[in-house]
C-alpha cells in the first residue's frame, strides 16, 4: 500500500476539527490593540507636557544637580510603582532622551514615563519590553522602572576604541520582539557575541568570535538571526556571517539570505520600483546609501522616501513588507516645515505604525495603512539635543 505525500499530509492535517473562534473575543482583542495605538500616539505628547512642567518648576533643581556628581546608577524611579504598572504589550513605546547643552542628560522618556538613568547614556535602543541604553561599557535595561545592568565590557564603549566606529549601533535589537545583541570585550582577544532576551531578562546566547579580534560590527538582528561582518562599509553594511539563535550556530551568510529574511519580516520596507526586486531594509538601520536610518523628505504635504542610487539622491518608492503596498505618508494637517525638512525612521511601534524624528526633534508617528501622521512629541528647545533609538549622542 502506498500513499502519495500530498494525500498523506492532507489526510493527517484534515483530522483537525472545525474552528470555533469567539468573534466577540477577537473583536475585543482587536479594539484593545487599536486603543493601545491611540495611547501610544498621545503618550508621547503627554510626556512632553510633563517634561515642560518639570523644566518650568524644576529648572533650578536641575541646574543645581548638574554641579554635583552623577548619582548612584540605581536611582529610584520617579514613581515607585512604575514597574508594577507596566502592561505587557506588543506595541512599542516611543523612547527618547533630551539633552540640554551643558547639563548632564540622565532621563529617558519611555511612553508616558520618565526614567532616571543616573548616567549619561550614549546609545538608546528599544524592544517590546522596554528600552536599553549604554554608558561607558555597560548595557542597561528598563521596562519603565529602575534600570538594571544587563551587560558589561561593551566593545564599542571601551576607551581603547577598537570597536568604537559604530558606537551608535553597538547594541542592536530586532524591529519586533525581545531580542537584542552586542559584543562583550571582557577578553579583547576574543570578543563575545551576546544575545539577550528582554522578556525573560536572560542571556540566550554567548558566543566568542575569534575572528572579531580585529574588527566586527553588528549588521542586523531579526527574529531568528544576528547578522555581522568583519568589514567597514559605507552605507548599508553587508552581512558576512549570521548567528542562528535557534541552532546556536555561527556560519557564513550572504546578502541574499539576509534579504530573504528581511522580506519575511512584517516590519520592514522594500526600496525600489517593484517590491519583488527592490532592496529590503529594516528602515531603522543604516540605509543603503548613507550612515543613517531611512530618510523621508518633506515636500509640500507629503513625506517622500529617499534613497541614494549610484551616489545621487533619487526618490523611489518604499513598500511595506507586510502588505506590499507603497508608502504614501502625509505630514500632519497644519504642520509647518520650512522649504524642506528631513525626517528619519527610528522605531516601528507596531506592524502598521512607524515613528520618525525630524531635524528639529519633532517626533511624528505615521500609520502605513492610511498614510496619516501625527505630531506625537514636539521638538525640544533650540539648546536641547534630542536622542532617539539608534542615533548617537552629540560628541
Amino acid at each position, binding site marked *: 500500500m502506498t500513499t502519495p505525500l500530498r494525500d498523506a499530509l492532507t489526510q493527517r492535517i484534515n483530522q483537525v476539527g472545525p474552528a470555533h473562534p469567539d468573534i466577540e473575543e477577537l473583536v475585543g482583542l482587536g479594539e484593545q490593540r487599536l486603543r493601545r495605538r491611540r495611547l501610544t500616539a498621545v503618550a508621547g505628547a503627554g510626556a512632553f507636557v510633563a517634561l515642560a512642567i518639570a523644566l518650568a518648576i524644576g529648572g533650578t533643581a536641575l541646574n543645581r544637580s548638574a554641579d554635583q556628581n552623577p548619582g548612584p546608577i540605581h536611582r529610584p524611579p520617579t514613581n515607585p510603582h512604575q514597574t508594577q504598572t507596566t502592561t505587557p504589550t506588543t506595541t512599542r513605546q516611543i523612547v527618547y532622551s533630551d539633552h540640554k547643552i551643558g547639563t548632564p542628560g540622565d532621563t529617558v522618556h519611555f511612553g508616558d514615563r520618565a526614567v532616571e538613568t543616573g548616567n549619561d547614556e550614549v546609545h538608546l535602543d528599544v524592544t517590546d519590553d522596554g528600552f536599553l541604553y549604554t554608558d561607558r561599557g555597560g548595557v542597561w535595561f528598563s521596562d519603565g522602572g529602575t534600570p538594571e545592568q544587563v551587560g558589561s565590557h561593551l566593545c564599542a564603549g571601551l576607551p581603547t576604541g577598537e570597536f568604537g566606529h559604530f558606537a551608535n549601533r553597538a547594541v542592536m535589537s530586532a524591529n519586533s520582539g525581545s531580542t537584542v545583541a552586542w559584543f562583550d570585550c571582557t577578553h579583547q582577544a576574543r570578543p563575545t557575541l551576546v544575545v539577550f532576551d528582554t522578556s525573560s531578562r536572560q542571556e540566550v546566547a554567548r558566543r566568542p568570535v575569534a575572528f572579531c579580534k580585529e574588527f566586527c560590527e553588528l549588521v542586523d538582528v531579526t*527574529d531568528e538571526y544576528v547578522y555581522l561582518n568583519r568589514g567597514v562599509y559605507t552605507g548599508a553594511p553587508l552581512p558576512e556571517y549570521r548567528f542562528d539563535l535557534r541552532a546556536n550556530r555561527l556560519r557564513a551568510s550572504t546578502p541574499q539570505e539576509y534579504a530573504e529574511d528581511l522580506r*519575511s519580516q512584517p516590519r520592514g520596507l522594500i526600496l525600489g520600483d517593484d517590491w519583488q526586486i527592490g532592496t529590503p531594509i529594516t528602515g531603522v538601520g543604516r540605509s543603503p546609501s548613507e550612515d543613517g536610518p531611512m530618510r523621508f523628505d518633506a515636500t509640500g504635504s507629503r513625506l517622500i522616501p529617499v534613497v541614494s542610487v549610484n551616489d545621487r539622491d533619487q526618490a523611489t518608492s518604499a513598500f511595506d513588507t507586510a502588505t506590499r503596498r507603497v508608502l504614501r505618508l502625509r505630514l500632519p494637517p497644519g504642520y509647518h516645515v520650512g522649504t524642506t525638512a528631513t525626517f528619519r525612521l527610528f522605531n516601528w511601534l507596531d506592524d502598521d505604525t512607524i515613528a520618525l524624528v525630524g531635524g528639529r526633534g519633532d517626533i511624528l508617528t505615521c500609520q502605513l495603512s492610511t498614510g496619516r501622521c501625527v505630531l506625537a512629541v514636539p521638538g525640544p528647545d533650540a539648546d536641547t539635543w534630542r536622542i532617539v533609538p539608534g542615533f548617537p549622542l552629540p560628541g
Partner: protein
Amino acid sequence: MARRSREQVSGFAELVEARSTALLRLAYAVVGDHQLAQDLLQEALVKVYVAWPRLRDESGAEAYARRTIVTTAISWRRRRSFHEPPMDVVPDSGGDGDQSDRIATHEVLWQQVRGLPPRQRVALVLRYYEDLSEAETADLMGCSTGTVKSQLSAALGKLRERVGPETGVLFPEDQAVTR
C-alpha cells in the same frame, strides 16, 4: 484611529465564520501543534481586524491572514512545542489492516514533518498540503522561488531519509517539484 464600524465588524465576522477552519488547518500544518495553532489563528485574526480598513475585501483579508500565519509561524522560534523533536517510536495504531497501517504511516510522516526547521516545514506544507505553486509559495513566504526550491529539496531529502520506503509514502521526484 476610530473604532471599527458596525459594517466592518460584520464583514470581519463573516470572514471568521467562513474561513476559520481552513485557516486553523493551515496554522496546524505549519506549527504542528493544536494549541499553538489556535493561538496562531487568534493572533492572525486579531491582526486582520486591526488592519481591516486597508484590506479592502474578503479575499484580501484572507490572504493577509494566511501571510500572517506563515510569517508568524516562521518567527515563533521560542515556542517549545513548535520544535519538539520527532518521535522515534511508531505509535500504536490500535488495530490491524490497511486502515491502521495508513494511520500509522501518516503519524510517522507527520512527526517527521513536525521535526523539520520552520521554513522547510512551511514550504512543504504550502506546496503539498495547500497545493500552491512554487511562485505562490514564495509569495506567501516572502522569499524567492529559488529559496522555496532549496527549502523543499532539503525538506524532501530529510523526509526520504527518515521515513523509510516500508512506510509506503511516495515522495515526489525532484523534477516533479517544479510547477
